[in-house]
């Protein structure tokens, strides 16, 4: 048969093409993936380029590490599986450092701490609570339970939009399962559209992202309501995700993040994009 040699040739060609790519211990070139749909942390501009707080921070870190960086976008729910099969080397997509994720991948130290909260219509029962800068640590069980019990009756029976595969979804499932209807979206942009359309009554997301969404005129009737939640299922803040075996890269990134926090770069970028300082406390 003539098929066999052709198949062999095709296989050989693809391997030949594949062999050109390989990783070393201290990388000179890395690819960083972001979601590109999570303004103002990371989003995509009209000409298709990623931009936002994390994209600018990523470029800054690469300069410090003196490595050549390529920044690409990847759907949120595919980020960790794609990292583990080697599609790219680093995730910087406002991903929380949680125990569950640490089972599969590793993280740098956090470069931001940003609480998550609800957004609802101003004239709804929960909306009357108004936003507060109060941060509830889920590890402190008594105050956390009190805060959650206060919100529960105000939002009972409502439809809450949340991004799939996030700690925000974990939180809703753990503390609000049965009292609200949870609807999972591929991107936060999509749940924003459904809040505007009135298909969901509330959103649960990071407060900085909610604030950016609600600043748009069509959301003038909505507000961030209740306290922000951190810790527990939200883990230890936002870090850059990487493969467990890439220890050299992790050390390089940690050093660069240290410097960026110390010289105020993180604070500057945070204020520029997020209008609030999310620098993790020392």
């Amino acid at each position: 048969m003539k098929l066999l040699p052709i198949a062999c040739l095709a296989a050989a060609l693809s391997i030949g093409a594949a062999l050109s790519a390989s990783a070393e211990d201290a990388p000179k070139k890395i690819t960083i993936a972001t979601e590109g749909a999570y303004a103002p942390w990371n989003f995509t501009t009209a000409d298709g380029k990623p931009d936002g707080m994390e994209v600018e921070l990523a470029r800054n870190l690469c300069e410090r590490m003196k490595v050549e960086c390529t920044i690409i976008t990847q759907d949120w729910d595919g980020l960790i599986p794609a990292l583990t099969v080697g599609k790219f080397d680093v995730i910087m997509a406002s991903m929380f450092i949680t125990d569950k994720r640490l089972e599969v991948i590793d993280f740098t130290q956090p470069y931001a701490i940003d609480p998550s909260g609800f957004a609802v219509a101003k004239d709804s029962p929960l909306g009357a609570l108004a936003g507060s800068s109060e941060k509830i640590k889920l590890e402190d069980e008594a105050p956390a339970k009190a805060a959650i019990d206060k919100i529960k009756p105000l939002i009972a029976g409502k439809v809450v939009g949340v991004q799939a595969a996030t700690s925000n979804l974990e939180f809703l499932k753990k503390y609000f399962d049965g009292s609200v209807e949870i609807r999972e979206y591929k991107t936060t942009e999509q749940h924003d559209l459904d809040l505007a359309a009135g298909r969901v009554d509330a959103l649960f997301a990071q407060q900085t992202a909610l604030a950016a969404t609600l600043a748009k005129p069509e959301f003038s009737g909505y507000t961030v309501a209740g306290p922000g939640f951190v810790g527990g299922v939200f883990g230890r803040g936002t870090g850059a995700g990487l493969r467990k075996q890439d220890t050299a890269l992790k050390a390089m990134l940690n050093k660069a993040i240290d410097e960026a926090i110390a010289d105020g770069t993180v604070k500057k970028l945070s204020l520029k994009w997020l209008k609030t300082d999310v620098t993790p406390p020392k």
Partner: protein
Amino acid sequence: MDFAFFAEIVPKLLAGLPLTLELAGTSILLGGILALTLALAQRLRQPWIDWPIRGFVALFRGTPLLVQIFLIYYGLGQFRLTLQELGLWGLFREPYWCAILALTLNTTAYGSEILRGAMQSVPIGQIEAAQAFGMTRLMTLRRIVLPIALRQALPSYGNEIILMVKGTSLASIVTLMEVTGIAQGIISQTYRAVEVFVCAGAIYLILNFIITRTLGRLEHNLSRHLRPASGFATSPT
């Protein structure tokens, strides 16, 4: 690949099967009725009926189902006030009905073309014979054209049904938790994309295999009169 993991996720994935079947079944049924209506309407050869139908068919066959779902769900979501005035918001508010609508319109477009082609292929002699017997147009349609055309259309329509079953996997995009939606949920818990997608794929494969077999048998039974009687086929002993 460990067996225990597969044993754990299969029941979870199967929990999405009723919704997958419901989405596919409802849209195939509704789409089938609409497709037949459109195909029959085109037999009237009225330009004012033909052109809108042709436009509809071209639109839904010329664009990806994914775009159609996004357009119907997120696109029309922008027109909440208008839809409320029309009393249609109750329908468009629900992801379930938006998915059904998109799938139904899509299969209507393909189905009407299949049925139209099948009706055109009915031998003119059969119709002339029916008219010579004094059958009315309606009776010719019911007794001669439709039975022949539907049997003729069965293989192509079978393919369309398989495409619809596969198409339901896009419903996860509008928040519905059918088999693919659940698969993505499991991946976000376990990060084991390949194993989970293989399992989900196998479920669709088996489902489509059963459908293909059932339709094959139906086709076989419907074409019984076209084969020599089974008695003749027995080998002489």
